[in-house]
């Protein structure tokens, strides 16, 4: 099949796969799991024609390992999975973060824990995406809500991964991944793609973990004359193990600062509805689509509602949420879990704005009445 062009009716997962290919991904490793497998299927079919490789690994542990390895060999790499597979990927996601390996992990969330309501939608991996791998670490997580965004945000995820030399998670869900809707595919030549910075020094002077002024070290690939030593053990600028006092502090601080010093390049939110509102909804992904519908519905009941949609979930948009809370009467956090984002909202709630939860944990797109009940509650 040749690349689809222009306006297309497309599934979210297919849009994600094409976004990756258009972003320059040439390696996919994965393990089948519903509701994400279509991403693997498109890659298996299409990657060879782009000089790329698809491999089906023995599990998600191996899949995450393989994309880290291929990225170090110079290929833009990614994988896709859902809840149980995302759990297995946590181990080597940490390796990728610590070794500063650009790659993209797509999680099409389903109900957990364990096998849960396989394979129905949920948004309950928000905290796992943040803290799933052990140890202190930063992470970048984007939440698409439409098929168009499955394409656009996949490209953005690759660009952020390459810019910051770090794994990026595309945190989607079953509704967004398996919905068909119209999208507009741009001319691939018109896309602004970011590629990791290569070393600017001769091989004998190259230190693989010596950062540039933006705190990101230029990256050689395996096979280059610039020798690349990538270690999951605490390492100094040479990349080799280093257990001296201070080395880990220096490394962890830089890993955090290289991302948190550049939040303006990462944080993205959407404001929807009237500027002044009685109630501000905070939501993301598929649940935010229900919220958009309710802005109009609440108006009919005489309640002015707007929406703050979190596009970047991590790092958390502290300032944007804080500002929204300061400018509203009450807040309803609508999420398809028992309350994960609400804790972050409360963390930045310096104005003591009343915050309510609308929780959808029924294995389907959150019903409008669940959120509407919370809205009415909030204006009582």
């Amino acid at each position: 099949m040749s690349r689809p062009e222009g306006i297309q009716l497309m599934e979210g997962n297919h849009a994600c796969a094409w976004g990756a290919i258009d972003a320059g991904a040439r390696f996919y490793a994965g393990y089948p799991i519903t509701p994400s497998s279509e991403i693997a299927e498109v890659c298996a079919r299409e990657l060879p024609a782009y000089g790329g490789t698809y491999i089906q690994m023995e599990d998600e542990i191996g899949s995450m390992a393989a994309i880290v390895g291929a990225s170090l060999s110079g290929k833009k790499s990614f994988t896709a999975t859902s809840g149980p597979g995302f759990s297995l990927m946590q181990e080597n996601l940490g390796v990728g973060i610590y070794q500063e390996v650009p790659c993209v992990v797509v999680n099409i969330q389903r109900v957990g824990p364990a096998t849960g309501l396989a394979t129905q939608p949920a948004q309950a991996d928000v905290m796992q995406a943040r803290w799933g791998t052990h140890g202190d670490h930063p992470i970048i997580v984007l939440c698409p809500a439409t098929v168009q965004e499955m394409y656009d945000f996949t490209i953005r995820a690759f660009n952020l991964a390459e810019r910051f030399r770090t794994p990026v998670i595309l945190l989607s869900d079953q509704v967004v991944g398996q919905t068909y809707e119209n999208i507009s595919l741009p001319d691939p030549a018109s896309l602004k793609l970011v590629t990791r910075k290569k070393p600017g020094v001769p091989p004998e002077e190259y230190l693989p973990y010596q950062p540039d002024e933006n705190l990101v070290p230029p990256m050689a690939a395996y096979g280059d004359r610039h020798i690349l030593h990538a270690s999951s053990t605490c390492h100094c600028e040479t990349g080799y193990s280093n257990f001296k006092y201070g080395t880990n502090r220096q490394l962890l601080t830089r890993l955090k600062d290289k991302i948190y010093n550049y939040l303006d390049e990462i944080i993205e939110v959407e404001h929807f509805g009237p500027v002044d509102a009685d109630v501000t909804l905070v939501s993301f992904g598929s649940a935010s689509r229900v919220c958009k519908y309710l802005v109009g519905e609440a108006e009919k009941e005489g309640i002015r509602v707007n929406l703050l949609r979190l596009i970047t979930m991590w790092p958390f948009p502290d300032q944007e949420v804080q500002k929204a809370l300061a400018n509203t009467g009450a807040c309803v956090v609508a999420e398809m879990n028992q309350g994960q984002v609400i804790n972050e909202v409360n963390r930045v709630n310096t104005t003591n704005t009343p915050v309510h939860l609308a929780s959808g944990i029924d294995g389907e797109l959150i019903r409008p009445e669940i959120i509407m009940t919370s809205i009415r509650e909030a204006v009582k």
Partner: protein
Amino acid sequence: MAVKLSYREYFKEEALPLMWCAGCGNGILLRAITDALADLEIPPHQVVVSTGIGCWGKADDYMKTHGFHGSHGRALAFGTGIKLGNPDLHVIALMGDGDALAIGGNHFIHAARRNIDITAIISNNFTYGMTGGQYSPTTPLSYKTTTSPIGVAEPAFDVCSLSEECGANYVARSTVYHVTQLKRFIAAAIQKKGFNVVEAINTCPTHFGRRNIPGDTVEMMNYVKEISISKSRYEKLDEEEKAKHLVTGELVNRDRPDFLSVYREINPAASETGRGEGK
């Protein structure tokens, strides 16, 4: 005639002294690998060593080639991505017995089944040395370790039989006593396409030897020498004697096509360079 390369092109001398215990054979194994690379005259930048976790998993810190040190048991999974990301590379996975066959067992059998072009060098010291001498999947039945104080109740894996059964192209076993043979097998494995396994029987006087082999580190080395036997001599032994020995030598040498060759045959569009631009 060109100047012969030295192991020093591959070995990071400034990292000396080695972190391994006195009497451990990992240093001998490392020398055999770096000597083999020098004999084959493979430029260091065309080699990636992928290590796991454990005593032998520290080996990358002593190498001047490209290096990768990942998570416990996953050296082959990372190595698979490294190889497919740049098929021109020589990928050498360095794993211990617990690393390769317990936590990494699933990756091991599938790497062999796929026949991915990676050389796996397993340092088998029959125990988890780094964590204090617990029993591993290769600890012989009834031998003592810290977690089998009376004797281990599980039969051991035969690394080479497992490799053969799963589809490896080249399988050889040697020991850190038989240095010349060990180097020869490693060189053969690196040169051959496909999944190739060299099992190096190693000495662990600190943990394994202390509890099972009477005597000092020299006796531990003698033990390794004495349990090694050629296939022809092994076959003449009775069952009781067989259980006390391990066959050394080249055990498998065949030419199944490797994963990438088959993948490219089935997907002709997948280019050699990986620089295709699609349709």
